[in-house]
């Protein structure tokens, strides 16, 4: 702590706050509960809730159990060496988390991605978003006591992973979308395999809807629970499905089309109710729309051509900075990279949807019942590892 005082940081306010919390817990009525980090329902994340009987009166998130210092690590490695470790915060959506990094590096280094490379990159990212959403849906299902909904997406996700395996050579962390394009071309017969897979998945999505979203038990536990109004969603700056569930049709793919997304025909899926049900249903609608986008990608993809622009072995970024975003499974995912003209980035800031949506958790939980906690928490599409970075 001595070092902090040296930098002029005081802890007076903290002491005041600590005393306040102790006073709360001395009162017999209130009880402070710790949720996580070992709790199977929260991931590697801890938050405390203070309850008055059944109702939550205070909630304090405490992230950081899986903090890896990704941003600091970036400063020690060059632009290419940074690719594999930057995927680790969210391995189920690794194509998207590296996508915006690639866009920012391309802007700094000054290269254009070949057209065929752009299509394959977008295809991988759409597929990956579905894989992430299926994984999240499975966990959401099991924590609301719906074990079929755990089994089905987990099983279907395996087919997708096989497809990504055929495309990239790895099951989850692909290091496939890289600065300059994609690592390799699509293998023979991939197009047909992918189309068959999409057709199967669209059939399955109808079954998901019947067994999960139309299930009266599920609807009772989510409808009208944890309502985030449109005004609050803007004020809190939430993103992704949480934002779109509150009636704001905002999607980075439409707002700031990257690569070939301005040629794609798709709708931004959103709902107006802003409750847990809407937040769980919007990603489902996104998965449907993703199938539609993937069909177009496969259809319009040029038959031949380069998939990657040649980079120098150790590319140097032009001095300056870049801030680029993509739409990931959890919302806008931005990289702010400062380059000082050396092969290593001077500063990398990863702005992730999970971290941005965390602020909605205390906002939604305070005033709701403790029993609604899992349904609200998982509807936020929160991925602790990504938030901690």
């Amino acid at each position, binding site marked *: 702590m001595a070092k902090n005082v040296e930098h002029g940081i005081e802890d007076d306010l903290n002491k005041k706050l600590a005393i306040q919390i102790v006073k709360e817990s001395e009162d017999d009525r209130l009880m402070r509960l710790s949720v996580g980090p070992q709790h199977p329902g929260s991931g590697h994340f801890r938050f405390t809730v203070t309850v008055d009987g059944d109702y939550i009166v205070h909630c304090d998130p405490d992230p950081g159990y899986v903090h890896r210092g990704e941003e600091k690590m970036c400063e020690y490695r060059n632009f290419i060496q940074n690719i594999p470790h930057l995927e680790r915060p969210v391995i189920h959506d690794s194509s998207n988390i590296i996508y915006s990094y690639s866009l920012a590096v391309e802007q*700094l280094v000054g290269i254009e991605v070949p057209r065929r490379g752009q299509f394959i990159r977008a295809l991988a990212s759409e597929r990956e978003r579905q894989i992430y959403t299926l994984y999240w849906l499975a966990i959401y299902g099991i924590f609301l006591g719906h074990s079929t909904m755990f089994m089905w997406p987990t099983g279907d996700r395996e087919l997708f992973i096989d497809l990504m395996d055929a495309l990239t050579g790895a099951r989850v962390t692909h290091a496939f979308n890289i600065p300059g394009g994609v690592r390799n071309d699509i293998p023979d017969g991939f197009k047909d395999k992918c189309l068959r897979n999409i057709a199967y998945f669209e059939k399955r999505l109808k079954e998901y809807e019947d067994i999960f979203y139309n299930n009266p038990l599920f609807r009772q536990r989510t409808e009208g629970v944890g309502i985030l109004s449109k005004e609050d969603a803007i004020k809190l700056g939430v993103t992704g499905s949480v934002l779109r569930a509150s009636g704001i049709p905002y999607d980075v793919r439409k707002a700031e089309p990257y690569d070939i997304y301005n040629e794609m025909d798709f709708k931004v899926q959103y709902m107006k109710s802003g409750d847990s049900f809407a937040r769980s249903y919007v990603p489902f609608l996104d998965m449907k729309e993703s199938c539609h986008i993937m069909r177009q990608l496969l259809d319009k993809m040029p038959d031949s051509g380069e998939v990657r622009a040649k980079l120098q072995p150790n590319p140097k970024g032009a001095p300056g900075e870049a801030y680029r975003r993509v739409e990931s499974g959890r919302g806008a995912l931005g990289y702010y990279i400062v380059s000082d003209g050396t092969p290593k980035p001077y500063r990398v800031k990863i702005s992730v949807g999970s971290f941005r949506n965390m602020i909605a958790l205390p906002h939604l939980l305070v005033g709701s019942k403790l029993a609604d906690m899992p349904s609200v928490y998982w509807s936020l599409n929160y991925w602790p590892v990504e938030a901690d970075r």
Partner: protein
Amino acid sequence: MTSELKEKPTTNSSPQQSSSPSSPPPSPKPAAGSSPPSPPAKREPESPPFEKGIVSQIISHFGNDKIKISYIRPLRIKINVNPADIVEVATFIRDNLGFDHAEAVSGTDYPKDDQIEVIYQLGSYSRDDLEGHVFSLATRTNRDDARLPTLINVYRSAEYHERETFEMLGVYFEGHPRNERFILPEDWADLPPLRKEFRIRGR
């Protein structure tokens, strides 16, 4: 594979370095600057008109003394202000320009200048014409006594981001209720890790 066979010799020195996103943005992309290779940091193409209009609104309200323009690119604007003016400027941006939330707060340590730069990346959900834009509001503070006024009363969404900046760079946000540990362990007693003098062990 086959993609690597063809090599273009000068892919790395395009004239539009650090200029604009590679995807076509809605605003027209200006032609590449025809000036001879001057210092690369200052080689910006002509500013796009829409973004220029946004900046001129701020300049006309606050004057040239308070606002320093870092760059105006398609969909991206960055201005630098003094810490004393930041609350006023941020309030103006929110109320008059339509940027309604903070996407990220990024701090960068510059030991050479003995300063820390804190950037608020601001976006807009409520206005359709601004949806792809990111307004970067930057300010600099001394490293030795890093203090900045908080913006949580203007941008509520900056709360956790500022808390993260506090612990990662040691910038004390005056008026922020909780300048305390967030992601780092509660008993962290070392330098703020994103300061440049903090070294990863063994490197």
